[in-house]
């Protein structure tokens, strides 16, 4: 079954596969849940697979993939009878540019990793409960021994700190 073996040489997916995490994050930012982000990221990668992107710079490839992902996201909403406003898409784009000015997702995540150490232990725990353990606000509140509103405030302040810290580090 030699025909079933993948060739050892580089394939078109080599150019796009590294962008999967960035694409996933972008889709989550647009509002996809995790599964939807999985699906649409995969759809976008498959859509791009047929194109020869070998000569493209990484940022251009990601930009191309993002445009595919955005269109697929809009299609998904339309299939569900929902729309996203142009203003929201503009705001999303602005957020992406603000946090990822040069599409350097790795740098952003690396910065985030360091910035997380600057949080207070309680804020760090709140972040971990919500983004690692998928805890709801109520669950996190119970775990931290504070009210749900306090958790929301804690998370908001933590994200603001992280956002500022990340921006500073990647500037």
């Amino acid at each position: 079954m030699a025909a079933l073996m993948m060739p050892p040489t580089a394939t078109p997916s080599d150019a796009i596969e590294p962008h999967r995490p960035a694409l996933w994050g972008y889709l989550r930012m647009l509002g996809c849940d995790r599964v939807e982000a999985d699906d649409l990221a995969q759809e976008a990668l498959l859509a791009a697979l047929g194109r020869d992107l070998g000569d493209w710079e990484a940022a251009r490839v990601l930009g191309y993939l993002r445009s595919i992902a955005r269109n697929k996201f809009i299609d998904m909403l339309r299939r569900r009878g929902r729309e996203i406003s142009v203003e929201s898409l503009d705001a999303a784009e602005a957020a992406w540019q603000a946090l990822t000015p040069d599409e350097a997702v790795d740098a952003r995540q690396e910065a985030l990793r360091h910035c997380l150490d600057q949080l207070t232990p309680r804020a760090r725990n709140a972040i971990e409960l919500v983004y690692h353990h998928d805890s709801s606000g109520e669950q996190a509140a119970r775990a931290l021994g504070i009210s749900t509103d306090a958790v929301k405030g804690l998370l908001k302040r933590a994200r603001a700190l992280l956002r500022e810290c990340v921006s500073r580090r990647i500037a």
Partner: protein
Amino acid sequence: MTDRPQTQADFEARLLGADLEQLFAAGALPSRIDPPSAPSAPPPARAWASRLSLLAMAACLLASVWIGWRALRPAPPEVAPISAAAGPLARLLEPGHSVRLGDHHLAAEGRALLVVADGEPTFPPDDPALLARLAATEGLTPEETPMIRDLTRWWALSPTAAVCILSGAMLLNGLPVAEAQAPDQLAQELAAIYKLEASEGRLRLALVDPNKRPQLPNLGMATIVKWGGGSSVRSGGAGTLLLTPSSIHCQRGEEQLVCTSTGKRTLIVIDAGSEAAIYRQGPESCQLTIVAGKLDITLRGADLVAIEKQDGKAVRAFRALLAKRLLPIPLTPFSEPVLRQLALALRPLSQAQRERFDALLADLGDKAYKTRQAASNQLAQLANADIRILTRVTQATLTAKEAEVSARLRAIHEQSPLAKIAKIIDARNLDRDLDVLLEVARRDAADRAVALARIKALLGYAKGQFMSPWTSDMIKDTEAAAGSDQAALAFWTKHIAEWTSQLRWNADKGRYDVLPKTDSDR
């Protein structure tokens, strides 16, 4: 996505959250706290008061439930042995032995035959919710859903390591094979032959016992095991099928079933009902986590993966695996008929083998095939596999209604987005497949219908592969020309010969190139 306007700050928060999720998932952020199930201690007085209050409430609730239950159910119900995995039945039928299954006689002549049956009704007719779900999946109207049950019949594959998969629906749900005898009788008969456990019409193999670590013996040939199947539709579990010349080890814990296949050839099929997330450890060891089914699979050295249906997250998960090149294999959705092709592809046939296999199929009788086979002619997507068409679909046994359902299913499947997947499949055997298809198309009416459908699918694949307007035109022309099978066949024969003459394998690009037409061509 909420409908209310989103601010840049909202999106930034989401993006930060997504980054955090990915960092945690990748292990880049070490966990510092226990999962929420073990929360940090609240103030002692409040915690104790809370706990006592909860305990009191729970005690009251339990007492109420117990009293009510006693009143309504004086005797405790019998606990089902293994709810989500009542099947499969799987046993090797030694050469020279045979088994009667209702109207059918299954014989292992000159070669061993592995018989597999899952153990639960696939589509209980008395479950409206399930039927509605199924109808939505298959694109059928509610009136047609009872027909779906008839689409699950038994099928055979692999001539040398002949395997016959029996559906639990067939055994237990009043389908034709089981009609001749009471389900329990049939179960007992099978159990006696295969030395399996049987009770209340259910057959099961220790393989799926949650408390054991079962192991299939090395049969010295391809082995197919199927979990789930129809039960997965109901339970949300996963149907899994492993094909390996080696052994399969499975362990089912409270929440997961871990299967490891050490064979070089492993075929895994995940049901559409599976909810799968992913993922991987490396090209030689891929891990698939199926969320709803709580199923973990570890593959080693798998070289084929098939997905039973194209919807469901399992498919997407496998697509992701494929895109990640973690599985050095082609991928196809679709069900048993495709598995048949895959199994055949694993063991290319000689002419003698093909004839024996055809004879076996003939022995099995016309009723042995599913109408859905006609709808599953997507093997063109496996264009790099060594495909042989050995399917014999006899439409004569179908009712008009079944034929209509079959046609609708076929139409649905042909509209599937398989071209996306096909694009990443090596097409080196494309011309050879066409030859085989044409050869089969010349045989008899039933095979010709199958071959024509496959040719059409193949051309659809080619269209996606080459993006050639010429191919698109050809498909359109053929639609118009195919007023009859004979006319369509003549058309295909002529045009495919022309078409393949224009293809040249481009080793550098790993695909076919369509040569430009010359002046003489025009």
